[in-house]
């Protein structure tokens, strides 16, 4: 197997036969079983002698062989080896040799983007998914599907931004390794994994925009043995995506379409109705005058009565429905491919129009791609070009503003028009006006983004010999994005602004240019049928230049005329924005693998990285990893049993690094003190202090795992236990002012993480030949991290966390990064309505002391993952996947801020129903919440920490592959249909408002695939 994999082409050795031996010439042609096309470059040789030849451009060969019984071998990369016996009489049977592609072999290959290894002999922890598997669980994008398939791949749910299609998610593989503060400081997410598309590094955004129908496979590399080849970029894991390569044959046209419908999931909102809200306000004392002014009291009484009157008239406005719509999404992909063995081509066009569940929330993408592969003898050239266009629009009024609006206001005035204010205080009344969210929404405001870019990846391969291959790659990518926002002069934001300064237009242009080159040599040889040696060595360089610039203009006079040319001028004191960063990296890497008799595996990686972000003193960094494995099922003592088809135990250790940091981290930079010059001219002062001594965050990863397949391939199990030690951590620390800077990036302490993950799949019914398969899958992951050696480095963060309104994260040695710190609460004292706290020493007290904080929970669940089942019956498939989460806690900020702690201003916003009910009063002494009050401040206590156990119906799907004859009758080659529902339901032990600025969505998608 291994030899075949690497046996790409033969390096021809001239035929030398003994003169005395009689010879005969075999002539023939080698073709592909699938389409009858000639195969070029197939190695043809006799026995294990060194005599052989290769097929020419027509698939034809001529081989002189000895006139005796011998075996003739036909070998071709990716195809089953064909061995024919020559019995001195059957020369004619060699005239046509049919070879077929080895599907199984291709499926069991781990693609790291740098090299490919057979899964069986790979020592790293990885998971590979084919396009069908990805499409079966969802059709939004690759990453959404990955999270359903692999428990270690986590897409952080954003309570703030919900299902906003234009918001890039935070992604983690096997948890975080970075301390808070870095994202804020550097703008990039330091926990984000590395993305590799067709062998070239790419961005999260590109992957999010990638049309799923173009994807052939996705591989997640998790541990050091598999990621270390990416060196200092790899500590967060690597996601390797391969797009489809054009298939050979006559011109073939395929169409894939997705049609989806998304609906907002507002079930987490538990807002008061008009009557409840008014009652709540009344209880909170909104309509009571505290100054003792009788006229003021009369005004408040009138206000109350007016509102009550409206309610009696039936006003009970449901504001949440206003910004919401049913989002209809459609995506199309047309791909034409064909060619013969020498030249293959593919031309594709993809279009996607995603409509979010909020009005004005759209994402349109258009992508054209041209794939070309040219193969001639020992050379192969391939080029992938893709051109993309993007058009995005976001709602200008956030969902939160609708959630704030009180239900006792009417949406429209008596004339059916929209008022600017729902409530405007009379002259001389010290009260806030209440803006109407519909007013700002109905104006000519917009928030748009458009982008245009292209990527061209060129790969040249030279098959020097059977063992030896050279590869050169060059990729170039250019992406220009432009973000434009416009606020109408009538926007309530400009109410207090001078007439000539109303309205705002701003434009930001983001230009990126990146290129990457790579030269590598690959070597693979099986020696004495027992020793398999693989080696890859190469050199890689890359550069990313990013330019951001923009300006703002104001002074619009008309709502309708929104072009920047209508602006009156620039905001006073404003200056153009401009920033540029250039990151360069150059690396040298080697990977070696040794397999003894398919049983004992060894892998090592070494990479030397140089990057411009690293200071001159620390420019180069070493990354290494060692992996080892044992294929127990290949041992002689297992050979008698067919029970295990795979039983591998593997382990690895290595130190991949993290490079997601700012470009000019190591530089001290200066700026002009632009506010003043003097008789000496201009002056400059320090802008940012670089730290050349900063040691880069390094994570030593250990992983032990096992892969099992048994019971006639019916059961698949992988189990991994890992521990990571990040030392030193890199954190931004507040410093004493006397250091001249208020914060510095510093190395402080370390973090230890340990965890395990498992996937388990069983097929109670497994009849692959009949196309019947029922499987049940279960996967789970769990991890726990602690800080060590951080001492008092983070005391400032701890202090600010203690005094902040809702901050519950603390940094202490032995503490978990995800722990929730708060003072324990014994509940509300029925007699007084006051909260009773439990002090550190266990005594009770009514006084809150922040120093009594202890760990009261952890947001990291004890176990989480997915379970699901899939049934294939002939062409029909039905499946469902559920996400579960158990053993974690959450600090319920909805309760904390929308039930208690409703301040004097918040009381005018609509609130959670629980703010009215469940409150302590003389009549309701057993309440969970304090009495209604506007002035009382509630402190962070364990009363708001709740168990967060949940089950989510993440993906339900139904698919049907039309039988060939049906498809043919419909005039197409093949056809399939699939229905996917995502996030169908969510059951949770905690009720918390999710989707503050943008609601979450449930969606159903129908996908259609046709090949002509």
């Amino acid at each position, binding site marked *: 197997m291994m030899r075949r994999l690497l046996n790409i082409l033969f390096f021809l050795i001239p035929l030398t036969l003994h003169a005395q031996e009689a010879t005969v010439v075999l002539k023939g042609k080698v073709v592909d079983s699938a389409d009858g096309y000639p195969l070029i470059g197939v190695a043809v040789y006799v026995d294990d002698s060194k005599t052989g030849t290769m097929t020419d451009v027509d698939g034809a060969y001529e081989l002189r062989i000895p006139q005796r019984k011998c075996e003739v071998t036909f070998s071709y990369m990716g195809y089953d080896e064909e061995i024919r016996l020559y019995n001195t009489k059957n020369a004619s049977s060699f005239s046509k040799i049919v070879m077929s592609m080895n599907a199984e072999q291709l499926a069991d290959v781990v693609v790291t983007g740098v090299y490919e290894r057979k899964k069986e002999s790979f020592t790293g922890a990885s998971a590979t998914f084919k396009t069908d598997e990805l499409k079966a669980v969802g059709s939004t994008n690759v990453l959404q599907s990955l999270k359903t398939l692999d428990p270690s791949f986590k897409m952080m749910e954003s309570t703030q931004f919900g299902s906003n299609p234009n918001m890039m998610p935070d992604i983690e593989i096997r948890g975080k390794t970075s301390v808070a503060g870095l994202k804020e400081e550097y703008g990039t997410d330091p926990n984000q994994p590395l993305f590799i598309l067709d062998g070239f590094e790419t961005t999260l955004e590109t992957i999010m925009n990638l049309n799923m129908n173009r994807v052939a496979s996705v591989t997640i590399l998790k541990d050091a043995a598999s990621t270390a080849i990416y060196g200092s970029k790899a500590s967060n894991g690597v996601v390797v995506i391969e797009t489809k390569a054009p298939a050979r044959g006559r011109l073939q046209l395929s169409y894939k379409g997705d049609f989806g419908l998304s609906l907002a999931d507002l079930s987490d909102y538990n807002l008061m109705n008009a009557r409840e809200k008014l009652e709540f306000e009344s209880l909170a004392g909104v309509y009571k005058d505290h100054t003792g002014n009788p006229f003021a009291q009369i005004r408040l009484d009138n206000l109350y009565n007016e509102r009550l009157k409206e309610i009696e008239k039936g006003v009970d406005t449901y504001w949440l429905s206003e910004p919401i719509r049913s989002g209809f999404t459609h995506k199309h992909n047309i791909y034409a491919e064909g060619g013969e063995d020498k030249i293959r081509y593919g031309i594709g066009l993809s279009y996607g129009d995603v409509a979010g569940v909020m009005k004005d929330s759209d994402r349109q993408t258009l992508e054209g791609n041209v794939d070309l592969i040219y193969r001639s003898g020992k050379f192969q050239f391939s080029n992938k070009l893709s051109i993309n266009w993007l058009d995005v629009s976001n709602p200008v009024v956030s969902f939160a503003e609708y959630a704030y609006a009180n239900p006792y206001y009417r949406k429209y005035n008596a004339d059916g028009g929209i008022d600017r204010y729902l409530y405007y205080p009379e002259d001389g009344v010290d009260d806030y006006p209440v803006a109407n969210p519909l007013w700002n929404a109905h104006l000519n405001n917009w928030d748009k983004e458009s982008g245009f870019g292209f990527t061209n990846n060129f790969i040249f391969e030279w098959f020097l010999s059977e063992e*030896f291959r050279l590869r050169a790659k060059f990729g170039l990518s250019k992406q220009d994005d432009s973000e434009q926002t416009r606020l109408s002069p009538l926007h309530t934001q400009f109410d207090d602004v001078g007439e000539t300064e109303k309205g705002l237009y701003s434009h930001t242009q983001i230009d990126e240019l990146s290129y990457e080159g790579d*030269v590598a*040599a690959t070597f693979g040889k099986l020696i004495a049928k027992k020793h398999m040696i693989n080696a890859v*060595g*190469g050199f890689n*360089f890359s550069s990313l230049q990013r330019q951001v610039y923009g300006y703002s203009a104001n002074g619009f006079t008309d709502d309708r005329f929104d072009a920047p040319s209508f602006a009156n001028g620039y905001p006073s004191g404003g200056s153009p924005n*401009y*920033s*540029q*960063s*250039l*990151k*360069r990296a*150059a*690396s*040298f890497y080697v990977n070696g693998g040794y397999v003894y008799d398919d049983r004992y595996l060894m892998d090592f990686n070494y990479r*030397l990285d*140089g*990057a*411009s972000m690293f200071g*001159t003193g620390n*420019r180069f960094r070493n990354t290494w990893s060692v992996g080892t494995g044992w294929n127990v099922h290949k041992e002689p003592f297992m050979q008698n049993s067919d029970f295990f088809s795979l039983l591998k135990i593997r382990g690895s250790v290595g130190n991949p690094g993290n490079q997601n940091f700012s*470009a*000019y981290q190591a*530089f*001290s*930079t*200066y*700026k*002009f003190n632009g506010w*003043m*010059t*003097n*008789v*000496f*001219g*201009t*002056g*400059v*002062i*320090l*802008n*940012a*202090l*670089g*730290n050349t*001594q900063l040691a880069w965050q390094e994570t030593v990863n250990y992983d032990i795992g096992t892969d099992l397949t048994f019971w006639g391939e019916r059961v698949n199990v992988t189990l991994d236990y890992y521990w990571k030690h990040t030392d030193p951590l890199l954190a931004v*620390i*507040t*410093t*004493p*002012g*006397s*250091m*001249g800077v*208020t914060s*510095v990036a510093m190395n402080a302490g370390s973090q230890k993480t340990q965890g395990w993950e498992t996937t388990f799949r069983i097929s109670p019914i497994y009849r692959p030949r009949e196309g019947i398969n029922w499987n049940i899958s279960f996967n789970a992951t769990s991890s726990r991290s602690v800080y060590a050696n951080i001492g008092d480095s983070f*005391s*400032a963060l701890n*202090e600010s966390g203690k005094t902040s309104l809702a901050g519950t994260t603390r940094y202490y040695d032995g503490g978990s990064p995800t722990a929730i710190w708060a003072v324990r609460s014994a509940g509300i004292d029925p007699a007084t309505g006051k909260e009773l706290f439990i002090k550190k020493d266990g005594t009770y007290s009514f006084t809150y002391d922040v120093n009594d904080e202890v760990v009261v929970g952890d947001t990291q669940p004890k176990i989480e993952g997915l379970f699901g089942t899939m049934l294939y019956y002939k062409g029909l498939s039905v499946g469902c996947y559920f996400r579960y989460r158990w053993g974690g806690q959450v600090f319920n900020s909805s309760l904390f801020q929308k039930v208690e702690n409703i301040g004097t201003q918040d009381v005018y916003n609509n609130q959670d129903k629980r703010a009215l009910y469940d409150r302590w009063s003389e009549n309701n002494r057993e309440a969970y919440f304090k009495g209604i009050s506007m002035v009382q401040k509630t402190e962070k206590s364990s009363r708001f920490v709740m168990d967060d156990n949940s089950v989510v119906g993440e993906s339900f799907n139904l698919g049907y592959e039309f039988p060939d004859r049906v498809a043919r009758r419909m005039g197409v080659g093949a056809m399939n249909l699939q229905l996917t529902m995502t996030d169908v339901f969510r059951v949770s032990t905690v009720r918390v408002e999710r989707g503050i600025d943008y609601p979450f969505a449930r969606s159903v998608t129908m996908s259609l695939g046709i090949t002509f």
Partner: protein
Amino acid sequence: MRRIFTYIAASVLLLTSCDAWLDVKPYDKMSQDELLSDEEGFIKLLNGIYIELNSDMLYGGALSVEMIEIMGGAYVIGTDNAVWGNYSDLASYQYGTEYWRSRFNETWNKAYSLILNCNLLLENLETTGVAFTGQNYKVIKGEALALRAMLHFDMLRLFGPVFSRNADLPAIPYYKAYTIVPNAQMTAREAAEEITNDLLEARILLANDPVRTEGTRLDAPTDGSSTFMYYRNLRLNYYAVTALLARSSLYFGDSKAAYEYSTEVIKAAETVFPFVDRSLVTGSPADPDRIFSSEVIFALSHTQRNKLFKNYFDPSRIPNYVFRMDNDLMSSKVFGGGSLTGGNQDDYRYRVNWVATGANRYFYKYSDMVETGNIRNTMIPMLRLGEMYLIAAESRSEDIGAGLAYVNMLREKRGVGNLQQLDRQILQYEYIRELYGEGQLFYMYKRMFSPVLFSTIDSKNPQPSDAIFTVPLPDTETENR
């Protein structure tokens, strides 16, 4: 196999040669290497520090006319919160309020950020291979050292203990280089030693400062060539460093040194910093040189100095707050009271700087002269000749009375007659007359550990105490250690 090695060798070669390729310089910001690659860069950085001294957190406000003068009892501060805001808290030395904690914090941070700039400049000056013309290297280094000392000195005077009583209490950290680990707090005495050492080194480096031979050199070229060695009174020149040594020596209790340094400046001043021309004061009463610019040994140049007047002293601000001296104090003590106080309404300092509007007189020191664009309209005096006379008087002998001659010399130039005797009280009035609105009074009371002369009624004047004279270190300094 040989081929593999060839490729590997080629790669290694490539990798080493790409070190230069990896050396990326920021384009949107000035990198240190780029900026400090020539003399011009060092000069710009030094000038940048001078410019930043004009920040309103430092000498463009807080440490010249605003915060520090309120602490020095210079102004009448009302109690109406709507008008006076947080000032009444400061006037009663309530340093612990949130507002003043943050104000002191920002002053502290700003001062130390400029100290960091000085240190970066000095460090790079040591390692750079740049060739400097003439005296430039020594002057740049000398001025940077002096700036570092001056800023530390003022932080010590503000946040440190009363030196004459508690010199061995922890005071401030002294930074002589950038470190990633914060420096420990030093005692006031240790800090004093560092300040003195830096100033002494600066003085040696500035020994060939053109100010000693060519004066302040206000005749800068206008053809665009370098003005670096001109306007020496706008830089910490040799005499400014000497004057600073006189000031700091007196503060640190070294009278002998204070006398030496102050008299050195006084001697040289005859030609370099001549007393203001009588005609400028009396001859053009409508447009006098209110800051006596020729006497200023070191001044900042603030292009919008006018804002100091507009924001704090301009009577047209009423009904908003306006800073001015207590009427009784002015009429019966500072500029009245005869031989008992030395106060006299003929005093130029009164005639020029105090202008009546209604029943009150307002402070016009920072109001512009008519001739716009004149460098004098930008000057915020940091060190002036008058103070040298007063220091000489104070430090001549244990007995203050022995300094009478110096006070009388100064008074003669101010258009008022000789005093017959000198005591601490009269000397303090003289300091008020000379340095009012220049941010030195608080430090004077702190140095002498005497009541703050805020009014004529002794019981109203804040009594000396460590509590009023020592501002607590900012929270960010103490918490983040």
